[in-house]
């Protein structure tokens, strides 16, 4: 009996040790990189980032005067019902244009995690669910969201019209502003999307007056986009590592643990499938089985977001866009449907350590939790989880995390754009 107990204890200890060894013992990590690997890594380096894509819907996208006006409006708290919220309230320059919160807080708590703005101009779609198809159109939505700026398009039009320096800059860019002084014709607080009184005020306006206000509102979005196009990510240790590999120098910018994590990123962990290109995102939509926040219904994601984008008067094909229809291929050829239920936009992984918490509603606090989530890849409770379980060992999860933390760098923009003007 005693010897049987001994055998059981010995066997249990051996199994526990073997399991711990398997999970935690580092395999000597290969730091050899084939030419094909280096070519793939070069496609993910900031050196491979193409020039900013044109923004056909926004005629002032690259106008320096528009960027200057957008810079001022970006930091202007008068664009809110409380006078306390600007774009920079959630998109904080000191926090990589993020807010370090699970859910954004404007005039009250919103329902989504703040998305970063660095490199945002490269995406064809905006918001987690892709309900906007341009940076200029995206900039309009938070202004009228009752949880964020809680303002209205007529308030914005009156602000631009009544602030001398805005008025002058606006008119230099877009021509004369209409006279909005008649408050019967142009109510102070009117929008088709707001409260009953805001909607009634909007309905009291003639169609041509509504158009005048909408034009000003759209143009404010366009100058905000012109400013945000300046916000780009800077080089990280990963980019230095790729440059070293490509030039044949000793590749020391990533240590052996980070290099092992990079190999996992490309291969076993399959991160590269969606987090590809120099911004580590395909800007597409995927359901990866992320649970909704406790007590909330799952998000319909892109399946609903595309419907909203298609019916948005401020989309690429709408009357406020400067594009011709042939330039709106993303919107014209977008694919929706039930397959995209619960699908959210792939986020950039650059500066990842500065953008926690993660996922569309900030459900996961740490990178370790994110890696665990993808490692398990449990069935989605809504729609279909595209990801498959990865079977990562504990040591591999740590290596992957070490690599992901090497993607942090500076913001590549003149410091004057990072402070209020």
């Amino acid at each position, binding site marked *: 009996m005693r010897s049987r107990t001994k055998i059981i204890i010995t066997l249990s200890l051996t199994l526990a040790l073997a399991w711990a060894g398997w999970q935690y013992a580092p395999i000597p990590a290969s730091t050899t990189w084939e030419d094909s690997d280096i070519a793939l890594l070069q*496609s993910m380096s900031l050196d491979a980032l193409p020039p900013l894509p044109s923004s056909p819907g926004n005629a002032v996208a690259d106008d320096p005067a528009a960027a200057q006006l957008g810079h001022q409006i970006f930091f202007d708290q008068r664009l809110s019902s409380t006078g306390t919220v600007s774009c920079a309230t959630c998109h904080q320059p000191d926090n990589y244009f993020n807010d370090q919160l699970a859910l954004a807080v404007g005039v009250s708590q919103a329902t989504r995690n703040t998305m970063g703005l660095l490199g945002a101009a490269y995406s*064809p779609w905006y918001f987690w669910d892709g309900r906007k198809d341009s940076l200029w159109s995206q900039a309009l939505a938070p202004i009228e969201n009752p949880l964020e700026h809680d303002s209205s398009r007529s308030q914005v039009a009156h602000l631009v019209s009544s602030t001398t320096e805005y008025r002058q800059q606006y008119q230099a860019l877009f021509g004369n502003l209409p006279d909005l002084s008649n408050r019967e014709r142009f109510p102070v607080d009117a929008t088709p999307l707001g409260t009953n009184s805001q909607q009634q005020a909007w309905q009291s306006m003639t169609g041509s007056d509504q158009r005048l206000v909408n034009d000003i509102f759209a143009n404010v979005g366009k100058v905000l986009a012109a400013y945000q196009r300046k916000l780009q990510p800077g080089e990280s240790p990963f980019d230095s590592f790729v440059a070293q590999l490509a030039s044949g120098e000793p590749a020391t910018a990533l240590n052996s643990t980070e290099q092992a994590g990079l190999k996992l990123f490309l291969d076993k962990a399959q991160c*590269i*499938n*969606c987090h*590809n*290109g120099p911004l580590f995102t*395909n*800007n*597409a*939509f*995927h359901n990866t089985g992320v649970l909704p926040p406790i007590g909330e219904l799952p998000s319909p994601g892109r399946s609903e977001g595309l419907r909203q984008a298609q019916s948005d008067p401020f989309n690429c094909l709408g009357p406020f866009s400067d594009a011709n229809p042939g330039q709106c*291929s*993303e919107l*014209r*050829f*977008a*694919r929706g449907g039930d*397959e995209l239920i619960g699908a959210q936009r792939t986020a950039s992984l650059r500066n990842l350590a500065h953008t926690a918490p993660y996922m569309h509603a900030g459900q996961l606090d740490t990178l370790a939790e994110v890696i665990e989530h993808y490692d398990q890849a449990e069935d989605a409770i809504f729609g*279909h989880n*595209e990801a498959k379980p990865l079977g990562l060992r504990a040591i591999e999860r740590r290596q992957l995390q070490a690599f992901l933390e090497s993607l942090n760098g500076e913001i590549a923009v003149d410091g004057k754009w990072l402070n209020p003007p």
Partner: protein
Amino acid sequence: MMRTTWLPNKIIITTLFILTSTLLLSKKTIAASEWETQSQPPGLTLHLKSQQTPVPLNQMHQWEIEVISSQGTPVENADITVTGGMPEHDHGLATAPRVSGQPGEGKYLLEGLRFHMPGEWKLDFVIMIDNKRYQVEHSFSL
């Protein structure tokens, strides 16, 4: 005993050989982004060509489809629809591509293609000509 097992085995192997040969012969890679493939039922040859070489990742781009009859003549006025996806990941295309023009000589312009992941992609072409339905399955790696 040996004979009774040998005969079905031979039939299976021969069938597999014929099927494999048919599949191999039915598709020809001309370049990294250009292929020639046969329809089911037989009768059409499709010449597929991406207008960007190699086929780009994450970029909206166009393909040209050339439809040729078994007599070697270009086929005009075909109605072509395209769907597809990544079987490995069990999802469809990121976009809804459509034929948007017919420059002539059996050529069709396919607009709105964007492949957003590396890996094996499958495109399913349905070609309707005078109410007759042809299908082409085209797989390629990105």
